[in-house]
């Protein structure tokens, strides 16, 4: 057949299939007058499906689905994990109709700024409609990963009883549920391997002893993470659980587990690869002699990840020496320790790739990190005291040291009070593999403290020299020039975060016009207005979302955007603003704009206006 006829027959076959059911094919007559046999197409599609099973990357799959209708269908039938970056971009029904054989769902709700109290708590992102749809459509569901969703105990109950083969539950930054929900999951999901609560807000209003609810005879648990739970747990139940979970590899307990208890757990589970140590501080009135922690750590030969240290008593830190040489991930970000307390630990951590720490270790501590951790890929330095101050414990000195010592760095989050362009430029030159650069100078509008200049050149160097950069967060005194650099060089950037920066609309224009790969843009307290907003009209449908709070955008400006782009939802809300007596302001407090296949959501609370 000629190519054109082959194409036509395939389309006709598709139409027939759509009308009559996927498996029944009838011969169709093409406009050319030939009968075409549908069977070769059926074979083609079967072959395709068998090949596509091996394709796992969702971006690849998205590309495949665009080839033609047949490929679209084959891809839809073989996609086993769906990733929904914004729960409002598509309805549960629509997702379930396209992808019918899904085993794993990743679902994300609120935008990141919700973590910093910039969003009212009842804004939305409810898991309920999703779980109800999935309960019918995805009976074979095995894995669920939710981030920034509102999940209730009822939702967890529906989930627990609907998916007989359910294996993995990961809740990140979620809220709305409590111990009752956890208990249902524990008792009903008999195949559960992964039960991870990460930075979730769990309520203990019901005060249910959820740890006692796991199957008595033994569990398949491989990962149990609950370090974010802010209330006591039943330790005996936990100990019992660990004893009967022979597959357990990851265990992160909360701060209500003390050192003595930790010791008992470690003895039961020397096979752990990932340990969250809880408070790492002894019980208030020790009755027995001190537990032999060193032996316990020595026995954990497979340990590669260590975290916890919520109320660390530094005297006990030496207990971790036996595992330092092996660990690739160390989270000290809750440990208020000094440089001198850090050094003996870190100097053994040659294999460390991920390190989270508090700035209590000061520049000196970071220098020690730089001296030893040559393989470091990710560094996060958190502030122990989050108030604006003139001098802080870490500064450009620490950043400079890291840039010189850790040349393989890929991701950095650095809180400080002051910084210099020189140190940032140095990092841009020394760390070419940087993918994520997030610098937070806590003092707003702070210039380079040694030259008095804006921080434009530093961030400019980052976008210019770090060719793999996809995520950037800026701070300090920044003029529109910084944004022009970002627009000019940030061609791969997907996520941008601006706060208290820029001079005028031009800043945002540079970015919206220049960053063609931009997907997520979060802005607060910048002088960007309607004109800047308009300059992104060509691009918003390519983005996951735009967030602008306390900028200079007006209601009218937002309305224009809403009218001009179909399939983009424009939400505005004002909830934190005081109107001076008699003042009428057209300025919008918060604009949250996102693309969506659906119309305006039905669950928007009263304070949200959808334009």
């Amino acid at each position, binding site marked *: 057949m000629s190519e054109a006829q082959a194409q036509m027959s395939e389309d006709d076959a598709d139409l027939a299939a759509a009308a009559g059911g996927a498996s029944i094919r009838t011969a169709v007559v093409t406009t050319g007058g030939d009968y075409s046999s549908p069977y070769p197409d059926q074979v083609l599609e079967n072959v395709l499906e068998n090949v596509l099973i091996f394709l796992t990357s969702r971006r690849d799959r998205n590309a495949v689905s665009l080839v033609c209708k047949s490929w679209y269908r084959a891809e839809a039938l073989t996609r086993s994990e769906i990733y929904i970056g914004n729960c409002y971009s598509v309805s549960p029904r629509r997702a379930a109709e396209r992808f019918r054989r899904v085993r794993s769902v990743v679902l994300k709700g609120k935008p990141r700024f919700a973590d*910093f*109290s910039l969003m009212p708590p009842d804004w939305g992102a409810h898991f309920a409609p999703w779980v109800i749809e999935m309960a019918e459509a995805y009976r074979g569901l095995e894995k669920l990963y939710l981030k920034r969703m509102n999940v209730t105990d009822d939702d967890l109950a529906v989930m627990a009883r609907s998916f007989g083969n359910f294996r993995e539950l990961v809740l990140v930054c979620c809220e709305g549920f409590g111990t009752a929900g956890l208990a249902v999951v524990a008792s009903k999901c008999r195949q559960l391997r992964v039960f991870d609560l990460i930075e979730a807000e769990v309520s203990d209003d019901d005060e249910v002893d959820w740890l006692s609810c796991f199957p008595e005879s033994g569990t398949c648990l491989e990962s149990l993470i609950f370090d974010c739970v802010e209330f006591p747990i039943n330790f005996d139940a936990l100990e019992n659980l660990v004893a009967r979970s022979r597959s357990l590899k990851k265990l992160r307990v909360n701060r209500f587990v003390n050192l003595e208890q930790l010791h008992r757990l470690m003895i039961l589970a020397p096979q752990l690869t990932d340990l969250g140590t809880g408070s790492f501080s002894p019980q208030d009135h020790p009755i027995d002699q001190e537990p032999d922690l060193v032996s316990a750590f020595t026995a954990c030969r497979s340990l590669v990840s260590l975290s916890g240290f919520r109320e660390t008593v530094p005297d006990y830190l030496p207990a971790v020496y036996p595992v330092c040489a092996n660990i690739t991930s160390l989270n000290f970000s809750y440990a208020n320790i000094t440089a001198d307390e850090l050094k003996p630990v870190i100097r053994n951590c040659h294999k460390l790739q991920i390190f989270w720490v508090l700035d209590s270790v000061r520049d000196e501590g970071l220098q020690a990190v730089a001296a030893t951790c040559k393989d470091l890929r990710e560094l996060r330095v958190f502030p122990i005291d989050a108030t604006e101050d003139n001098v802080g414990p870490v500064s450009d000195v620490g950043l400079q040291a890291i840039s010189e010592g850790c040349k393989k760095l890929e991701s950095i989050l650095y809180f400080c009070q002051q910084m210099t362009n020189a140190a940032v430029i140095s990092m841009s030159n020394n760390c070419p593999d940087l993918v994520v650069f997030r610098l937070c100078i806590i003092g707003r509008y702070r210039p380079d403290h040694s030259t008095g200049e804006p921080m434009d050149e530093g961030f400019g160097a980052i976008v210019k020299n770090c060719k793999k950069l996809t995520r950037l967060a800026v701070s300090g005194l920044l003029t529109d020039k910084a944004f022009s650099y970002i627009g000019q060089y940030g061609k791969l950037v997907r996520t941008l975060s601006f706060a208290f920066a820029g001079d005028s609309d031009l800043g945002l224009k540079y970015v919206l016009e220049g960053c063609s790969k931009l997907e997520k843009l979060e802005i607060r307290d910048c002088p960007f207005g309607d004109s800047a907003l308009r300059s992104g009209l060509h691009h918003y449908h390519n983005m996951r979302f735009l967030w602008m709070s306390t900028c200079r955008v007006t209601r009218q400006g937002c309305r224009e955007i809403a009218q001009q782009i179909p399939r983009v939802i424009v939400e505005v809300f004002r909830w934190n603003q005081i*109107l001076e007596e008699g003042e009428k302001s057209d300025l919008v407090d918060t604009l949250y704009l996102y693309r969506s296949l659906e119309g305006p959501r039905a669950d928007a609370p009263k304070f949200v206006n959808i334009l």
Partner: protein
Amino acid sequence: MSSMNNLSESGKSGMNLKETELTLGLPGEPRVGKACMKRVFSETVDLELGNSGKKDSSGSGSSMKKESATSRGKLVGWPPVRAHRKNIMTVKSGKYVKVGVDGAPYLRKVDLELYNSYEQFLSALEGLFTCFKIRTVLDEKKLMDPVNGVEYVPTYEDKDGDWMLVGDVPWKMFAESCKRVRLMTRSEAIGLAPRPETKCSSSSS
């Protein structure tokens, strides 16, 4: 009802009295003016986080007059550290108690160490449960739901497990012995009699 007497006695304690003024407005009317100050959405421990930096350190970015206003001069969500992480640092200090309301399914938590007086505490409750307002009735401050006029009486469970009326004992003593707080409707609270400073062990209904 004498439970609120302590409030009028406890003085100003550095509290902006304007915040407890009556606002004139029908239920359902948009709340403008000082009433809006009470709307905090973050963790209750972040009650300090009203909003708005009044001035920035260098004066540029001057266009930011429309920064969210504040009742206490601190900026919301800055620096961008999760509330969870912020709380952790001060976790050893602070005395958190649950606050429940009759008829509402949710509980909130407050840190009693943030307050020095019953007046401050009541104002905080008003901020937490935005459906309530403090009304002055016959020289006493009461917590009322302006929509239906129902009065709520703060009660608390003390160290001994007894339920008492809030306000009977000096603030510090209350803060030390309080384990949890419940805002009961007046009819529910009838059985609780004010107690003298020396504890009786009889339980309340």
